[in-house]
């Protein structure tokens, strides 16, 4: 009988399960920010160090879950000995660095970056903008009414989300989320050059012809509302979008065994969008088409017809 018993394909280890090695102790780096000394583990960025000191650094293209591309330049700080300002989000902290985060030079660059963006892009649905603009006294109007913008028609080519590139600040986040930082679908990339650079599928083909899998992870990372759930877009168009009357409920996705966290946004008894918390240790805010968009069944009256 015994030789008929199935053999284990992978030998089962006997004895106690070995313990994971203790995490390697990272050397600490000591630097000075705004006159205060701070020490952070090796490999940390200036932004990490500033946060540790409670210094609020503005960021637009930075997200904890993505590789920093340091293109928006709103996080620049003054590093002693450096000819130019340096991006806090990606510059690694080095021992002995001396940094100013609120000098005249820093404030000027940050203000100009905000003015450049707000004068060329519609930032009306970008939640961070009003606060930053006030803090740095940005006045985008000063470039005049004829200042060139990226204004263009909204792209609505599918039932799940819209792309309004008039609101795009070219932070590269959606490209990263669609690519190697999360989804590995590569439906979109940066195309064109200079002021005409834009996010695009190949030859601007509609999403329905592209590689897009409608995971919506690009919406999850968009800082300006250029990428938006169609449900939200339609409510905003109709003037019924009202965040003060919305509730957010955390739950678990009902579909597969991964168990992604969902945050269900509800207004007047209806689900209006679904997001996912960035700090989830497995999914880092990413979902698939089912978790992100497959909620309509909730609204179906499940009572069997008589």
């Amino acid at each position, binding site marked *: 009988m015994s030789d008929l018993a199935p053999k284990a394909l992978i030998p089962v280890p006997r004895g106690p399960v070995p313990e994971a090695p203790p995490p390697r102790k990272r050397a600490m780096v000591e630097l000075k920010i705004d006159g205060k000394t701070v020490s952070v583990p090796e490999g940390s960025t200036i932004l990490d160090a500033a946060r540790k000191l409670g210094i609020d650094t503005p960021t637009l293209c930075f997200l904890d879950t993505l590789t920093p591309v340091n293109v928006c330049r709103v996080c620049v700080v003054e590093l002693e000995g450096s000819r130019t300002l340096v991006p806090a989000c990606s510059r690694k902290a080095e021992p002995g660095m001396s940094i100013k985060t609120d000098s005249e030079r820093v404030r000027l660059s940050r203000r100009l970056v905000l003015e450049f963006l707000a004068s060329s892009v519609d930032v009306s649905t970008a939640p961070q903008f009003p606060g930053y603009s006030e803090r740095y006294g940005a006045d985008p109007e000063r470039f005049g009414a004829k200042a060139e913008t990226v204004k263009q028609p909204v792209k609505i080519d599918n039932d799940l989300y819209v792309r309004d590139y008039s609101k795009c600040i070219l932070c590269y986040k959606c490209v990263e989320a669609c690519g190697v930082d999360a989804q590995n679908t590569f439906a979109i990339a940066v195309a064109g050059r200079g002021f005409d650079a834009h996010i695009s599928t190949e030859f601007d083909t509609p999403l329905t012809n*592209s590689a897009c899998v409608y995971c919506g992870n690009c919406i999850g990372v968009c800082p300006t509302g250029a990428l938006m759930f169609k449900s939200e877009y339609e409510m905003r168009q109709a003037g019924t979008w009202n965040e003060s009357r919305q509730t957010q409920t955390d739950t678990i996705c009902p579909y597969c065994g991964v168990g992604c966290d969902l945050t269900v946004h509800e207004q007047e008894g209806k689900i209006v969008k679904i997001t996912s918390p960035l700090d989830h240790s497995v999914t880092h805010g990413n979902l698939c088409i089912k978790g992100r968009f497959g909620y309509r069944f909730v609204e179906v009256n499940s009572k069997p017809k008589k």
Partner: protein
Amino acid sequence: MDIHFTADEPSVEEKAAVDQELGSPETPWDGGQRDVNSDGRVSFGGNYAGIHRHKLLPTLHAVQARIGWISPGAINYVSLRLGLPPAEVYGVASFYHLFSLTQRPPVVAHVCEDIACMTRGSEEICGKLESKLGPAGKPCMSGKATWLRSPCLGLCERAPAAMASASGKSPRERVLAPATADGVEKLLRDGVDGTLPAEADELNVKASVPQAGSANLVLLRRVGKASGTSLDEYRKADGYEALRKAVEIGPEAVVREVIDSKLLGRGGAAFPTGKKWEALLNQRKQGRPHYVICNADESEPGTFKDRVVMEGDPFAVIEGMTIAAVATGAQKGYIYLRGEYPFAAERLTHAIQEARKTGLLGENILGRGLKFDIELRRGAGAYICGEETALFNSIEGYRGEPRNKPPFPTVAGLFRQPTSVNNVETLVNVPEIIRMGGAAYAKIGTGNSVGYRLWCVCGHVTRPGVYETPFGGTLRELIQMAGGVAGNGRLQAVLLGGAAGAFVAPKELDVPLTFEGTRAIGATLGSGVVMLFDDSVDLRRILLRIAEFFRDETCGQCVPCRVGVVRQQETLERLIARKPLGTAETEVRMLREMGQAMRDASICGLGQTASSALESALNRWSLFS
């Protein structure tokens, strides 16, 4: 990753163009026939899929040269062959202005409208072409040709300049300088009739190197004397003596000589060459591959010295690179040549082949077991790719967007490996340093500005061309050497260092042309441009053209530069039209603020210097009050 394609199919011609560049597809994964028996279960995905990415730019070149534009079907096929997502291939193709992604006539003339050509009547040529052939970009000659306005073509000594390309099975390219409207029209006609000559051009030594043949020359001594196509002639004129010596004395000694020579890079940034090489040498034990790159993406408006050297003395560039390889331990080198230099491409290709044939490149250089080879890469119309990290991305098959530094190229450069990037002129200095010894070289010149320098003298000057001097002379002496001010003879301004440089006034002509001397008056040597303007020129128009140049050439990656260059141009337009927002003073103050933000917060040198010529002019003249 499954690559998703749109329904667009490539044409037979497009497929042939790609396959000619890449060879026939071997597996079903890159477009070959599927054989169920042999490769039914074999997959080549993951990292393997992307390892051909660096062939992307040459492949796109092949399609553009054969077909005249890059269609959706062609993008699909290129993506399939290289295992890349079509969206990314489109993103790369749309970055370069020599590639067309909409159907375009097969014959195209690029007419330079940049500052050097402006002083020599390029606007009239464009005006005439407009009335004869229609507006730029519109098909003419029964839809078979078109003409386009172009940024600096690097032919400033023979301005005004034009370049024509005719796509097809045997694509042709030809430059025309000095150009006339009739000449451009004939170029297009010849292209349409298929009678453009197969050879790209000839170097006009007399017009380009007025000093040619003079006994005092060092860097330019072979230009016009040796043919540039014969390795024997090069050798007879001391060629490859330095390489022989370098191999004998070994890498450490070569690096020591170059450090002792105090040679500073000639591309514009003036970084010590020896330090770069030492950094690579010190990493040799790590076992990582090293690269040396010759930066021949000479696109700074007004700069043409590297072109003349590559056309006139291509073996010197190859020898300089090979010595760099000896010093750094690199086994592979790239020459990144700007797309608008067809003749230099021909000459360098020939020189590389000759060197390989005679064992001066390849597996066993000089019979000493040294391994090094050079690949020529052509850019496709992007000034920004002359920035070293953008150049890496371009070679690797990504968009030519600069990377953030650090890490510096000597630590993580091409393919994230230690890389030394040197300008053409820097590299041709190296054989001389090795021949005469670093210490002797360091005695030529003054202070930290040592050795020989090439100057691109152009604009309103009697004998424009490349001039060579040891460091130490003044701007006035150089202008006298070139025959003095032409045009109406009354000098208004000199632009030093190109579009990213600075203007100087006639009263500053006694400035020594050294790194220190120019810095002291708030100018720069940059790439060695010395462009003269007589007082008939409206400097405001020149400033506007410089602003337009940066607007066209910014990669668009970082906000201060992407939007800053547009706002800078708009503000200048308002000031020139005398329609300022508020007063002219508030507008000028705004220009300076924008300049500071671009200088402080941009990722790379393009944004950091996009306002420098403008600000130097504001410092010297009150142009807008």
